[in-house]
């Protein structure tokens, strides 16, 4: 008789149970995406039934892709049959990479690209290394990287749900993170930090709800399913660094939280960085892994043009897992051997934070003149034609600018490949630039800061160049037709109720008409109600209690400042308040 080797007692835990826990933790996140990208647009009648279940289809399709790819690979290449095949199917969890892949992609990723990403994830990310347990890189991230390098532009324009497209203008909150450093442009357009926390912002399918991800983390850590040390140290490092940066740049505490809750950081740190196969096994290794992930993510977000950074950081650190495990296993016997790496990590954390933080304070965006380039300049009589380029967000913008008799007559973009360009053309930004007499101070288009800035700079620098050789440019002041200030209002109806005068008044806001009900009694506005609006910036108005401010200052409307970032909308409201009060007084006084 061959003796069976002990221990004869094994824990009740099993790989299978861990995977089930993982699924349980993911369920609320999946349901939230169903709500956000399916139910909500459907409820607001922005989509049909297919759109309603689309998020689920998207996720299932992705999971099925990796599952089928791996199974086929095992059958065709590894020639697995029957028992062996069944073992692989039940024990290698090949639907997980697909599931994760779907959750880190934007909802509008074309399905074909999604499928290709899934296949790539399995073949290159997993099977090329010898399958489950042997892969060095996180397969889902391999799929993600594949998609994001081959189809970058497709991705960046796919973030908004059918509902959000109408209400928000920016791709993801992170697209401006470093450029525009104020609460109003970074957070306000999406509501408040609370919206970030619960997931009321655009982003990848599974990444937006910080709340649900944190709940999932609690659940997984409690059940000892994931390597919680990685998540904790990762987030800790990241938070410490952003806090340092923001205090050096005088930004305030909202900034680190804004960073924490945006993009794939939480999702990545909870689900991707802790992927067991591709992360260190030793506690010290895991801690260092978390530190360096934090550092790399900061580098990516602040020092490279890619605002996301989480996924690439994880893939990069995947390569160092075995080194970290070496350090970790020896450091267990003698912590001193690992100590030096902790010193290095913390040195980097401090040095980078200080470097980035103080850099942000001196606003690097002014030293950008070298991005401007005049390709040709032709002068015929009093007409000069410039062809110039300026570095935009992802590509060079090439423009033709004609100045005739000291007056800009043409401004035309010849070439561009910027994913956010359409946002500027949507608001006729170029027209706005041409009409402005204070070019340098025209607001940028929020969400397309880089691009609008490029458009502005092109015109500004071209003008400067022209002025060097010729006389002063005559500003197009006479062209200003309807500056927002003198934009009118429209009276829709008026009636008398209980001795009060009730008016329905409308005015054109930024992207829609705004209709207000105004109640006037004794020449004073005593009540108002928003009847209709579909304005992108209306949330900013609400957030600032702007309507109350107007009501309080109704006799002195001119002195009320517009809200920067929502100029059109605030002007429209000012017009309504001022106009209707004037109309009423004139009529009844």
């Amino acid at each position, binding site marked *: 008789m061959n*003796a*069976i080797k002990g221990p004869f*007692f094994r*824990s009740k835990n*099993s*790989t299978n149970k861990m995977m089930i826990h993982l699924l349980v933790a993911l369920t609320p996140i999946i349901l939230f995406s169903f709500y956000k990208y399916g139910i909500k647009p459907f409820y607001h009648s922005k989509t049909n039934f297919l759109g309603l279940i689309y998020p689920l289809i998207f996720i299932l399709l992705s999971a099925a892709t990796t599952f089928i790819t791996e199974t086929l690979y095992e059958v065709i290449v590894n020639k697995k049959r029957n028992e062996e095949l069944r073992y692989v199917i039940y024990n290698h969890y090949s639907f997980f990479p697909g599931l994760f892949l779907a959750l880190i992609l934007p909802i509008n990723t074309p399905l074909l690209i999604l499928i290709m990403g899934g296949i790539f994830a399995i073949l290159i990310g997993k099977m090329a290394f010898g399958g489950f347990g042997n892969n060095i890189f996180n397969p889902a991230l391999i799929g993600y990287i594949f998609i994001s390098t081959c189809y970058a532009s497709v991705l960046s324009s796919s973030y908004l749900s059918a509902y959000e497209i109408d209400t928000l203008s920016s791709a993801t909150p992170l697209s401006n993170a470093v450029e525009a450093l104020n609460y109003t442009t970074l957070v306000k357009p999406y509501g408040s930090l609370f919206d970030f926390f619960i997931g009321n912002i655009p982003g990848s399918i599974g990444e937006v709800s910080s709340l649900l991800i944190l709940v999932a983390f609690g659940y997984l850590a409690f059940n000892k399913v994931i390597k919680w040390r990685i998540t904790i140290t990762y987030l800790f490092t990241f938070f410490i660094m952003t806090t340092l940066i923001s205090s050096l740049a005088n930004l305030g505490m909202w900034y680190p939280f804004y960073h924490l809750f945006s993009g794939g950081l939480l999702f990545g740190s909870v689900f991707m960085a802790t992927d*067991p196969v591709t*992360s260190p096994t*030793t*506690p010290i290794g895991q801690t260092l892994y978390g530190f360096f992930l934090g550092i790399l993510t900061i580098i990516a977000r602040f020092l490279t043009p890619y605002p996301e950074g989480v996924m690439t950081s994880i893939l990069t650190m995947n390569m160092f897992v075995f080194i970290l495990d070496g350090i970790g296993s020896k450091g267990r016997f003698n912590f001193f051997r690992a100590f030096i790496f902790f010193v290095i990590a913390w040195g980097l954390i401090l040095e980078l934070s200080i470097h980035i933080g103080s850099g942000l304070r001196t606003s690097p965006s002014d030293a950008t003149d070298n991005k401007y380039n005049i390709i040709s300049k032709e002068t015929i009589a009093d007409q000069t034609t410039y062809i110039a380029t300026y570095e935009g967000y992802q590509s060079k913008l090439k423009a033709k600018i004609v100045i005739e008799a000291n007056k800009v007559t043409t401004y035309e973009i010849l070439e561009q490949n910027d994913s956010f360009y359409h946002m500027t053309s949507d608001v006729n930004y170029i027209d706005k630039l041409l009409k402005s007499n204070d070019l340098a101070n025209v607001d940028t288009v929020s969400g397309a800061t880089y691009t609008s800035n490029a458009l502005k700079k092109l015109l500004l620098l071209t003008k400067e160049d022209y002025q060097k050789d010729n006389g002063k440019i005559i500003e197009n002041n006479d062209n200003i037709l309807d500056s927002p200030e003198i934009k009118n209002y429209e009276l829709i109806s008026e009636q008398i109720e209980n001795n009060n005068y009730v008016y329905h008044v409308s005015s054109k806001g930024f992207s829609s008409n705004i209709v207000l009900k105004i109640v006037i009694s004794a020449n004073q506005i005593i009540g108002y109600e928003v009847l209709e609006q579909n304005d992108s910036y209306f949330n900013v108005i609400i957030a600032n209690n702007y309507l109350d401010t107007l009501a309080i200052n109704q006799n002195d409307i001119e002195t009320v400042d517009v809200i920067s970032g929502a100029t059109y909308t605030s002007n429209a409201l000012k017009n309504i308040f001022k106009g209707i009060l004037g109309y009423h007084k004139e009529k009844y006084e």
Partner: protein
Amino acid sequence: MRVVLPKFKSLSKNKDVLKIEAPEYIYIPLIVGSDTDITILVKKEEYVFKGMVLGKTKGHFRIPIHSSVSGIVKDFVEKTYHDGTKVKCIKIENDFEERTQEPVLSRKDMSKLTKKEFISLLQEKGIVGMGGSGFPTYVKYDNDNINTLIVNAVECEPYITADNAIIHQKAQEILDTIDTIMEINNINEAFIAIKKNNQELKDVFDNFLGTFLKIKIILVPDIYPMGWERYLVKYIKHTTYKKLPIEKGIVVNNVSTIYAIYEALKKDKPLIERLITITGDIKNPVNINVKTGTTLEYILTKLQIEKKFIIAGGPMMGVNVPDLVVSPNLNCVIILDNYKETLSKTCLRCGKCVSACPTKLSPVLIKENLDDKEKIKELKANKCIECGLCSYICPAKINLREYVRKAKQIEKE
């Protein structure tokens, strides 16, 4: 990571200790701890008294092995030791006379013994660690700078209740002995380590403790392997040592060993009997008092237990054996209905084995680097105490301890 194991102790706990009749044939294993290099002092057909020395280890410890019955030496045969290896045994035909060479004595005041007498008594009576190691006890006391005695009553493996039973029966004697040992060796503090959830054992001691002011009961956490010497010393004395606790003036004794010392000091009785737990999937799990050299087969027939899957020792460190003879350092036999080896799956590198290992090894890395002797050395596989926690905790059910054992061998080669 702190690992709490399921207990299964209530099976055999708090039951009267059963004493079964001596068998007709006794097989005294010629082994002390793992030392089989024994000088045999008897011949076939020789008459031996109960308690007579049958052999001695050859090394410089010179531990004697005693007969547990009186009768005639019949043969030298091989039997299974509790670690699964075959060991030579002296087969003695019991004459059921229980005849001893000298009349049984009862020393009135044990504490009158000098340290020298004490040490030679421990040696002569073959007292060894009864918690499993079988390490000669006298060696631990052969030192002038002992300041602390830790009595290990943790019994951290599931199922085993032998120590528990002996405390219930002999608390007074155990405390007496500890007091005596302290006096003889000039030790100023003693601790009895008991698991937190074993409050009732503390109560048992508390009944007698009033007169022993220097003995403290320490409740230790219910984690595995809390009974490991290093853990105990760390927990109780907040200190670590290189090889042996005596470096810090600490002696750790199992509570059953303390009782064996009592019998040696009080009655000059060698270590020829002990309490073992017979438990598992059987109708009546018990603690029984048996003579060394009794075969398991005999015990099972007496208890009317069918012989099935047998584990000698606890479920964690124990070994699956076909049969067995009782030796001084066997504390438990578990009989399971049918045990199927768990199928191991692919390692998912979850790192649980690493966090669980009490000696701070990285079992998964040892397993991954089995072909690299240099790496194995760096990973210090030889520090493994074979507690089995890594295998226990692994969600993929990989028997990591076996890999670490293999690594140990490779390192030795």
